């Protein structure tokens, strides 16, 4: 883990690893935002975690991206369920009920406990305050199977403006960041220790500090002790 992180930092020192830059097309909700592709280290490890599973169940907490559904389905032969938590947040913002988010997250997912093989959180925790983030993390930990894995992206820099990001999988080592407008801005950056406390029932297996100013973290749920 430490080696990987230092290698990533080294790439950062050597220069930008920006893969490409395209202008957003097609999605009317995006207002002339610039899409940028960045390398990802954690995604391929997430895929590796699930490749041995038979017809794994994956939850995608980001907004639905059709090509992502196809990608994960083809790579993993999985069942994938898109649960757009960003739209949940927006709904609560519009209704002025943000303080009810923790309660909402506690009952948001009705999948059986320990039934989910993998969870793609993307950067959704950046948009939550502490109580809501803790409630969501607890709910996700409960859903995850033993040895299941969870991928999260956490911002390490202040990003002004109210915009979410769709993470479009280009391939297993590249993500295209596609911003789109939302009702909520990023909250205070979570420190490494804060993140580990949020997911205290999980074990951090990999952590990468990326040039995109995101920390990619992969968690696994340890098997219960006999």
């Amino acid at each position, binding site marked *: 883990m430490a080696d990987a992180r230092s290698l990533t930092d080294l790439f950062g020192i050597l220069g930008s690893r920006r893969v490409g830059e395209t202008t957003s097309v097609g999605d009317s*909700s995006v207002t002339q935002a610039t899409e940028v592709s960045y390398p990802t280290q954690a995604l391929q490890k997430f895929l590796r975690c699930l490749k041995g599973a038979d*017809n794994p169940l994956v939850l995608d907490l980001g*907004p639905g991206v*059709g*090509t992502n559904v*196809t990608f994960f389905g083809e790579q993993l032969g999985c069942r994938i369920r898109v649960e757009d938590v960003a739209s949940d947040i927006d709904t609560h913002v519009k209704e002025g009920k943000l303080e009810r988010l923790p309660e909402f997250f506690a009952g948001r997912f009705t999948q059986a406990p320990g039934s989910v093989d993998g969870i793609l959180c993307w950067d959704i925790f950046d948009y939550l305050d502490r109580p809501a983030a803790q409630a969501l993390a607890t709910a996700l930990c409960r859903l995850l199977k033993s040895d299941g894995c969870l991928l999260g992206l956490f911002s390490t820099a202040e990003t002004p403006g109210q915009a979410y990001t769709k993470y479009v999988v280009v391939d297993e080592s590249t993500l295209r960041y596609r911003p789109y407008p939302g009702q909520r801005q990023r909250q205070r950056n979570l420190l490494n220790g804060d993140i580990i406390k949020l997911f205290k029932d999980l074990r951090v297996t990999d952590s990468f500090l990326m040039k995109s100013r995101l920390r990619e973290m992969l968690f696994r749920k340890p098997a219960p002790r006999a």
Partner: protein
Amino acid sequence: MWKRDESVKPATPPAQTPVTTPSSPVAAGSAASDSRTQLGRDNVNIGKSVIIKGELSGSEDLTIEGHVEGRIDLKGNALTIGPNGKIKGEVFAKVVVVLGEVTGNVTASEKVDIRDNGSVDGDIVSPRVAIAEGAHFRGAVDMQRAGAKAQAKPAAPSQGQAPPQTQKVGA
């Protein structure tokens, strides 16, 4: 570029009605008698004024522009739900192309293709799924590996799942 050679087509349409609607009261007139229901050799088109309530099964490719309430079973053939088509019920086909609306689980042995402005509200089971930018989808996708199971199994009912959230799917 190429002009279609009409002489290849048979002069008379097939005698047997390719689409059956057992126990299906047709609310807006009989599908067979509807002038907009066109019977071709390989593809049946149900026009947008047709409403079918009941099970629909057949062994030819089918395009639906009308409304169907009930199960559609075209296991070996392609089903296209046109931009005006609305389906309420489970769908089974080899290939399902959605340009209209489907409310119900969709099972395809080959591919499900939700095109721009197409909408599916239900679970999808298919080895290949394509969801276009601008398509609406809420539910789960089960893409079993081709080698894992030869035939797609019917989608499990979505009861007990999380309350579905309407999503605008884009990529």
